[in-house]
């Protein structure tokens, strides 16, 4: 995408550059000009590029949707000014604050909501962001390929404490995840 954009910028720049040194107007018929500039460059060119991009994006977007899956782990993220709480379907009474535990290598559905204003759940290395909206629950599918710590943050302005409104996602190996669910100290 970056390369393509750069190319377009260069082409446009070249066209403008040439226009300052091109031949005088008299010998260029207007009809042909319209065909080149309006139909060709103005309509056909952007429409074909955009159509390709759009279809690609929609197909990818469709694939990113959380589809039904038995293997999926369910957790809840509850945002608040300015902290995050996480609860786990597989380990009911437990609540963690500021750290979300997930198994590595398995899809996880995070059900996101908020107790006060709008926040947004975003772990840049795991998935795109999704908002926490009062009265609504949004489900985001994430998956960590390897165990480790991943940085997460709220990405919707929420007032004074917004800058520090961050959290951590801890992805566990299968064995550690079993121990976590059993309630053993980690």
């Amino acid at each position, binding site marked *: 995408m970056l390369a393509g954009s750069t190319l377009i910028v260069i082409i446009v720049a070249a066209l403008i550059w040439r226009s300052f040194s091109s031949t005088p107007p008299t010998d260029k018929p207007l009809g042909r000009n319209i065909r080149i500039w309006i139909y060709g460059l103005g309509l056909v060119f952007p429409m074909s590029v955009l*159509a390709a991009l759009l279809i690609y994006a*929609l197909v990818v*977007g*469709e694939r990113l*949707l*959380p589809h039904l899956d038995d293997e999926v782990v369910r957790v809840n993220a509850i945002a608040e000014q300015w902290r995050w709480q996480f609860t786990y379907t597989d380990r009911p009474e437990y609540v963690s604050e500021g750290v979300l535990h997930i198994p590595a290598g398995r899809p996880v559905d995070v059900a996101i909501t908020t107790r006060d204003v709008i926040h947004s759940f975003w772990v840049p290395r795991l998935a795109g962001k999704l908002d926490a909206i009062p009265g609504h629950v949004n489900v985001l599918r994430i998956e960590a390929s390897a165990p480790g710590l991943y940085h997460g943050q709220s990405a919707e302005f929420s007032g004074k404490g917004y800058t520090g409104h961050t959290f951590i996602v801890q992805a566990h190996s299968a064995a550690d995840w079993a121990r976590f669910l059993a309630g053993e100290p980690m």
Partner: protein
Amino acid sequence: MRDLLRILIAPLIWLAAFSAVYALQGFGCAAGLNEAIFVGMSFLRAMLILAWVLTIATLVGIFYWLERTAPRLPWTSAISRITACVAMVAAIWSLFPVTFTSICN
């Protein structure tokens, strides 16, 4: 004024139809129409596709009407022809997702 309306009418219909289809999708999901089945696809999708086809048909109709009747200024017909085409392309382009994307999630 009538000439101006000839220029605006087709895109206006696109905008209304686009909003209506989006509203239909929202209401349909809220009313659970997505679960009902109609000839092998969800009832809601069938309705959305119908709405899409109707939109395009209306715009084609408008296009022909614009071609067949004369504006007060000849110049207007060139412009209204373009805007009518824009509306048709926009209808096809912006609503084609009714055919395949998942509707309610």
